[in-house]
């Protein structure tokens, strides 16, 4: 401040000097006007010369500052008074006021500060008379003392004397006691209304209207126990060190207290002693110990006691907290009264725990009986066998196993085939054809619909038809083909078997190419020259060709019409719907499923885990990622798909024998088989279990039987020659509709790959010779090489599978645990309906298979409701219109861009996705995009369907709000509606 002042001064002097060469920095203070001066306004930062500076006290009075109050400068330039020194005050005569003179008290010579100090030092104490709290006790103590003195003197007269003195002498009871006396209280009585005595005492007293004063019972001060010692344990008594510690601490605290008080200028003898010499300007609140004697003994804190706060709160915090408490105290309770002393009203409501009713014990419950039973079972525990124990525990009895039980089926089959050479087969029933080649149900159906060969031999044709019908399951009640057929008339057993082979081949050849392809072609006129003995090849001359567009369309229309006319398959849903329509809610409309809440959810809901042994990685929650999304091709989805397919196609994977035609058929060899026709790539345990689980129970039963049969009745020697191939072919029934195994492989890759690789490596180490020996000379055809390789691989795997002990047959024949987990639910399909259901699906061919990979199509009918949202509300937000519409435009653009990109990407991504699904830990974003892809694709398809369920915009005219403003709404509503349409068309992940 002074610097600026100097500058200013300088500048003024210089201007006075008349030289203009100086430079002025900054803005000068405004000159003090006359008005300011009058009002006493001064700039606090203004330069004031030293002699004009004044020291003023807190009240604004001019104050002497000097050595006496601890200042470092005093008087006039650190002299006294004024320039002249002491100025004597002018003489005032007191002669006229002589009468007023009186003895002067020390207070007369004190200034305000001194008086203040005295006032502070004074302590307001109740006089003896009014000292309610201490008075009585003091009196009692005095009386007691007197009594003791009397006893010490030992004389009755003395005692009499004192008591007489007491009686004569004036009492100095407190006002309270006197008041109580006036109310009728006498010393020795308790305080309170007089009570009527208990009935028992009435006879003693003789009267019942006598009232008695309450007993003088001491008020017990119940202190809550805050420490953790035992009852009655006194720490200080038992550990004298602690007592010492406490004493020291109290001493310390006393000192600290004093110091503290001194620091706050409360009691001031100490200030003079201790703080003399400090400047008056020094901040009193400064906690720095100037004298540096930190005498705190930290050792004491080691024995910190509960009842003594570790750090005494400073006076200031104390006052603050006390005011806070007092303000709290003032809040009344619910009933309007203040809370009891020492209590404060909590601002947090008391929470009561949840109370559950105790379980009701049924009347007929007899715990005794239960105990007896327990005893009965518990007693002979030691001499029970494991089976008995197992039965009690409800375990499945362990079947005695042989080594062969641990061999996988495929290997067993091979073993059987090999053994057939050595083992006597037993007699073959010559009247019946058994072990003839089979074809799949679907193939049989296709063949039935296709061209019928053997036109030259009508009997044979009839037999062929019969064979196909049998294979299609039309002959038997349960839809399963018969495995034994009587030898047809006029043929020997051998001829019959040969014919069966022929039939199977024919069925393979004369099937319609595929539903799609056959639709494109007209049927060719076929001439067959079948000589049953020499050649099995049918000569087909293709004279047909591509259908014309019109023809194809016509047929398509017809087909569609047929399908439309056909009654929709009666599903369980419609059952429910029927019941609901008939208002028969209840059993029919209710489905109960298991629900597996996660561990944490149970914890949060405060319930026990209802399925403690449920493994969340399996079952219904399987295939779900962290984010909760389900993979499009998750295991359970796949499972479902396969199940659907198996019911639709009537596939039977465990057919005893399926001939592999392309082996010895040159024409077929020339044709590159479909991926599904190729030998099965190494199947995994997972796949096996799936396929087995997907089988309907009846088929599993049959397959079990056939398996047994196969074991008992070995097949013909001619077929045994290439047993390795057969086994693979038997495992993989030729089913051309099945999607390529590569897909499955890709899906289950990560779960099996590692194992497989490991195992393969292991295999290479252990039995390279073995694989070499099994490798046979291969034909040149490429796909056969491929096939061989696959077979070898499979064999390897077969061998590997010997290793881990698989449970016998159970693993393949019983259902998977996931399927098991579903509780039994009665179905309401009548047999007729069921058959119609299967009939419907028989026709369905590739469409069914491909379906799961398609995005949600006709099933994506999304019902959509809106809470909704009309345009009018937006009127009120007219201001935002422009930006909103901008947004919408941008959105639209972005969407278009994305759509383009997606379309390009789509084909790639679709495949990639499938393959990468497992490996890439598939961020949810990607999946999200994938969904969008699909949605965009399906959008067009769905538009019609969804039209019904597009979210509607209400056309609510809000008359009341139009006054606010108008406009805006239309663009927004349009945009939103378009969004809705879009979103409604979007399929859901669960449907993928």
């Amino acid at each position, binding site marked *: 401040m002074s610097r600026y002042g100097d500058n200013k001064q300088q500048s003024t002097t210089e201007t006075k000097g008349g030289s203009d060469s100086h430079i002025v920095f900054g803005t000068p203070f405004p000159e003090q006007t006359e008005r300011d001066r009058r009002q006493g306004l001064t700039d606090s930062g203004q330069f004031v010369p030293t002699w004009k500076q004044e020291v003023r006290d807190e009240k604004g009075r001019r104050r002497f500052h000097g050595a006496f109050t601890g200042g470092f400068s005093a008087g006039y330039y650190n002299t006294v008074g004024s320039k002249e020194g002491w100025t004597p005050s002018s003489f005032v005569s007191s002669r006229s006021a002589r009468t007023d003179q009186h003895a002067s008290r020390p207070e007369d010579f004190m200034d305000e500060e001194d008086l203040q100090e005295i006032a502070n030092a004074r302590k307001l104490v109740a006089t003896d008379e009014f000292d309610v709290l201490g008075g009585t006790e003091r009196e009692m103590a005095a009386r007691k003392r007197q009594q003791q003195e009397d006893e010490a003197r030992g004389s009755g007269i003395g005692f009499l004397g004192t008591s007489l003195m007491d009686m004569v002498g004036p009492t100095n009871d407190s006002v309270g006691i006197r008041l109580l006396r006036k109310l009728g209280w006498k010393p020795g009585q308790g305080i309170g209304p007089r009570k009527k005595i208990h009935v028992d005492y009435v006879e003693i007293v003789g009267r019942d209207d006598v009232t008695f004063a309450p007993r003088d019972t001491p008020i017990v001060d119940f202190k809550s126990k805050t420490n953790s010692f035992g009852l009655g344990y006194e720490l200080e008594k038992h550990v004298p060190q602690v007592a010492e510690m406490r004493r020291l601490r109290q001493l310390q605290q006393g000192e600290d207290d004093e110091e503290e008080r001194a620091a706050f200028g409360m009691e001031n003898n100490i200030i003079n002693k201790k703080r003399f010499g400090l400047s008056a300007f020094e901040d009193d609140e400064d906690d720095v110990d100037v004298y540096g004697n930190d005498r705190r003994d930290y050792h004491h804190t080691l024995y910190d006691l509960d009842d003594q706060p570790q750090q005494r709160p400073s006076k200031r915090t104390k006052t603050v907290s006390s005011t806070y408490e007092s303000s709290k105290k003032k809040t009344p309770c619910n009933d309007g009264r203040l809370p009891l002393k020492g209590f404060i009203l909590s601002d947090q*409501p008391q929470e009561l725990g949840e109370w559950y009713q105790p379980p009701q014990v049924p009347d007929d419950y007899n715990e005794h009986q239960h105990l007896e039973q327990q005893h009965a079972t518990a007693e002979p525990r030691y001499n029970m066998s494991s089976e008995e124990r197992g039965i009690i525990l409800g375990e499945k009895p362990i079947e005695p196993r042989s080594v062969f039980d641990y061999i996988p089926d495929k290997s067993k089959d091979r073993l059987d085939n090999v053994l057939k050479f050595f083992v006597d087969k037993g007699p073959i029933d010559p009247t019946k054809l058994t072990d003839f080649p089979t074809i799949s149900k679907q193939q049989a159906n296709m063949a039935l619909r296709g061209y019928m060969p053997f036109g030259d031999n009508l009997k044979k044709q009839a037999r062929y038809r019969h064979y196909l019908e049998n294979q299609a399951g039309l002959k038997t009640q349960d839809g399963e083909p018969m495995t034994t057929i009587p030898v047809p008339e006029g043929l020997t057993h051998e001829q019959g078997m040969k014919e069966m082979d022929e039939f199977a081949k024919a069925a393979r050849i004369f099937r319609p190419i595929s539903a799609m392809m056959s639709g494109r072609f007209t049927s060719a006129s076929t001439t067959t020259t079948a000589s049953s003995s020499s050649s099995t090849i049918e000569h087909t001359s293709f004279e047909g060709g591509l259908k014309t567009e019109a023809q194809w369309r016509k047929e398509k229309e017809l087909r569609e019409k047929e399908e439309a006319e056909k009654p929709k398959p009666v599903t369980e*849903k419609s059952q*429910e719907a029927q*019941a*609901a*329509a008939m*208002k028969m*809610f*209840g*059993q029919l*409309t*209710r*489905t*109960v*499923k*298991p*629900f*597996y*809440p*996660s561990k*944490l*959810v*149970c914890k*949060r*809901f*405060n*319930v*026990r*885990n*209802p*399925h403690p042994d449920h493994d969340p990685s399996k079952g219904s929650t399987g295939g*779900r990622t*962290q*984010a*909760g*999304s*389900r993979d499009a091709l998750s295991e359970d989805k796949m499972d479902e798909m396969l199940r659907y397919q198996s019911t639709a196609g009537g596939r039977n994977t465990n057919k005893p024998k399926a001939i592999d035609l392309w082996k010895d058929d040159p024409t077929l060899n020339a044709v590159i088989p479909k991926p599904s026709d190729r030998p099965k790539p190494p199947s995994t345990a997972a796949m096996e279990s799936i396929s087995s689980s997907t089988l309907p129970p009846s088929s599993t039963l049959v397959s079990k039987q056939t398996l047994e049969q196969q074991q008992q009745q070995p097949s013909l020697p001619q077929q045994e020659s290439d047993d390795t191939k057969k086994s693979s072919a038997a495992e993989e029934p030729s089913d051309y509709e099945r999607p390529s195994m590569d897909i499955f492989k890709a899906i289950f890759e990560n779960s099996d790959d590692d194992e497989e690789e490991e195992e393969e490596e292991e295999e290479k180490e252990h039995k390279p010779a073995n694989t070499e020996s099994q490798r046979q000379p291969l034909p040149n055809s490429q796909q056969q090489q491929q096939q061989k390789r696959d077979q070898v691989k499979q064999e390897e795997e077969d061998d590997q599978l010997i290793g881990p002990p698989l449970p016998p047959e159970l693993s393949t024949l019983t259902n998977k645990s996931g399927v098991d987990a579903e509780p039994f639910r009665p179905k309401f399909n009548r047999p007729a309906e069921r058959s119609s259901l299967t009939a419907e699906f028989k026709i369905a061919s590739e469409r069914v298979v491909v379906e799961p990979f398609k995005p949600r199509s006709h099933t994506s009918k*999304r*019902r*959509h*409701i*809106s*809470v*909704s*949202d*009309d345009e009018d*509300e*937006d009127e*009120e*937000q007219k201001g935002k219109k422009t930006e909103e519409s901008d947004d919408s435009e941008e959105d639209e653009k972005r969407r278009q861009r994305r759509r383009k990109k997606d379309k390009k990407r789509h084909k790639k991504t679709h495949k990639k996705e499938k393959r990468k699904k497992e490996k890439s830990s598939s961020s949810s974003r990607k999946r999200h995009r994938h969904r969008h892809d699909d949605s965009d694709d399906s959008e067009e398809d769905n538009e019609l369907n969804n039209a019904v369920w597009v979210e*509607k915009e*209400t056309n*609510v005219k*809000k008359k*009341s*709000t139009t006054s606010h403003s108008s406009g805006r709404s239309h663009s927004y509503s349009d945009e939103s509606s378009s969004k809705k349409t879009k*979103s409604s068309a979007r399929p*859901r*992940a*669960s449907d993928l």
Partner: protein
Amino acid sequence: MVAYPTHCDQSLKGHKGPISQVCYNKSGQYCLSGGRDRTVRLWNPATGMEVHSYNGHGRDVLGVSVSPDNGRLASCGADRAVILWDVGTGAILRRYTAHWERVNDVDFNEQGTVLVSGSFDATIRIWDCRSSNFSPIQVLEDCKDTIMSIQVKDVEIIAGSTDGKVRTYDLRNGKLAEDYIGPPITSARLSNDGNCILVSTLDDTVRLMDKANGTLLNEFKGHKHNEFKVESVMSNTDAYAISGSENGQIYIWDVLEGTTVKTLQSQDTIVTSIDYHPSDVAMVTAGNDGVVRVWS
């Protein structure tokens, strides 16, 4: 003295646009509404005062809920977020954004430890309010279509879905009961005794279903409800069933008789949401006109 609300006491104006849901707090002292204007508003229905407006949603608010200790709020909306609010400060405590689509309804469990939300993406997600885990602790994917309403009571989660099924998840028994109703469900609420579920469907019908075995106890008709999300509720004595209507009326049925005992004309447009006072004869309704009405 009739046992159902008959006249409109207060009109709480403040929302700019339709209101999607309204509910009382647990004591019935305040009510909460969320609407198209992206705000959640807390009202004092007795005085008609707007206590606070909670801003933070990016798009329409579709569902609101109050925690059992009245200390927190939850709201969900078309911005696919579920937001947990602190009532006093209005601060956002948590924002859960794992849903793929608009979230239609949200509810607290009775301990206030968990939020359950149902969405257009056909999943019910359970969120943990205790830990700082922002991903759902469980995802229920049983529903085949949009979930329109969620209610958590005791250890049960009631979900009404557009696939026409009411799903009751019983956590204690680990069972899921699916009750097929048929038409899309817009609201499924437990009665106060917890034994029945009141189901509003898009065929102009409100049904009272028995929770234990899924049988139909009664059917209430007369109102118009075939397009929009309209809620229905039982009175706190379970004596009356109350539903909004698309013609702006409020229908009150006798639960036992199934007859309409009263229709109240509320407004010209749809009455979407209703909540009944937990102890008094009072209710709040809200609809497309953006006004919360308090009835008694």
